[in-house]
């Protein structure tokens, strides 16, 4: 009987270990560029991410082509000229929550999360530190963050003719709903 119980626990272990992982398959990342001439925004609702509450590891992955603009021509320019999405189809982030001790994934509430890692856009990888929030509601965990990205830093050249239409600093907003698997 005792042997049987031990065996059950051993069998359950892989599940317990894996259930630690939080997964998001339909995350939403959008960016916003404001200039006196034009406001531009684009939305990507197919962002995937894995968050490991035990270690604080957090990783994002998205396809550049999945960003949707209101103007089709703008979307074409974004892909063809600025992001070169044929050559560099993905953008990724890999990082760690640095204040993990302040976040209780088992207790409902909204926690401030500090994340540090590497963001890759247009094949350029740069360190990024972001302060966001993690909201725990039962089994649902939602991570939110906002940060500024500068096209120039990621080797994205904006031609002189549209220079005034595109902001030097682009505001990026992240909203990821996670569930355990």
């Amino acid at each position, binding site marked *: 009987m005792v042997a049987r119980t031990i*065996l059950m626990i051993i*069998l359950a272990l*892989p*599940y317990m*270990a*894996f*259930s630690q*992982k939080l*997964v998001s*398959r*339909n995350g939403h990342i959008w960016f916003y560029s404001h200039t006196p001439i034009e406001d531009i925004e684009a939305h990507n609702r*197919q*962002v*995937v*991410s*894995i968050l490991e509450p035990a270690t604080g*590891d957090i*990783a*994002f*992955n*998205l*396809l550049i*082509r*999945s960003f949707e603009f*209101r*103007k*089709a*021509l703008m979307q*074409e*320019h974004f*892909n*063809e*000229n600025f992001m070169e999405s*044929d050559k560099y189809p*993905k953008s*990724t982030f*890999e990082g760690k929550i640095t204040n993990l001790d302040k976040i209780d994934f088992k207790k409902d509430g909204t926690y401030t999360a500090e994340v540090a890692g590497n963001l890759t856009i247009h094949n350029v990888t740069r360190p990024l530190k972001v302060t966001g929030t993690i909201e725990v509601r039962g089994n649902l965990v939602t991570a939110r963050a906002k940060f500024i990205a500068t096209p120039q830093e990621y080797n994205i*050249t904006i*031609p002189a*003719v*549209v220079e005034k*239409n595109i902001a030097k600093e682009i505001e990026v907003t992240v909203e990821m709903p996670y569930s355990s*698997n």
Partner: protein
Amino acid sequence: MRLTGKILLHAILPLLFLPANAQDLDKMLEEAVGSATEYTMATFKSTRIINGHSIERTPASQLDFRISHRFGQLNTGAYNLWGLDQANIHFSLEYGITNWLMVGVGRGTYEKTYDGFAKFSLLRQSKGERNMPFSLSLLTCATYNTLKWNQEGSLKKWDRMSYVTQLLIARKFNEWFSLEINPTYVHRNLVATGNDPNDLFALGAGMRVKVSKRVALMAEYYYVTPRQHDYQGADTFDPLAIGVDIETGGHVFNIMLTNSLAMIEKGFIGETTGNIADGGIHLGFNILRVFTLK
């Protein structure tokens, strides 16, 4: 035996259902994005190559306002400032009803002609789940000539009509090079003389060579049959055009040299009278302004 099987099952099962590590993000992304069909974009930069149509269509709710201009022939000399004194204009409004159907109406100086067209995007080049090596569009145009009738009798309305049907077949070979082939049928209801055929068959070819992010070299040529024909007593030639596409935010500029004066299919395919060898070349430009109506 049964127990071993159970243990194995329980050890493997979690691996099947749950992402094991961050490398699985790629796989997750593929699943999230769904069918991984990637449609080729920007085979050509606009709905025209130079004079003629490209396979591109305006996406749904996009309105294009297009102004095209051809000067006179270079060989008209200094008196005409090598053609610059002459102005021949065509303007049009073109709209995407859906992502596969666009329509347009236009008016040109050339024979004071109104024109209308519909272009259907039938196949789109793609790779991934759905593999399609080329794009295919169908173009149908009708034109109505409103010149005053100075000859005897009267002209019936239908006599002023001409029709063009084109299959547009294109492939973007890589980021830098796109090629298009256009089998074309032109029908003119009334022609001036017995030497002007009512029906013309032509094979067009166009290409785009991208030289930088916003500049591309363009070329276009139509092989027209029957080979020997004239237009109102003047010899006709195969239309040839070379140009440069310059793209800014919401505009496309196209500057070209061509032996055709007309900017509608019926005109440049059937009625090109510029002899290149003799300096019968027109300088011209197209300007496209894009509006999104949604």
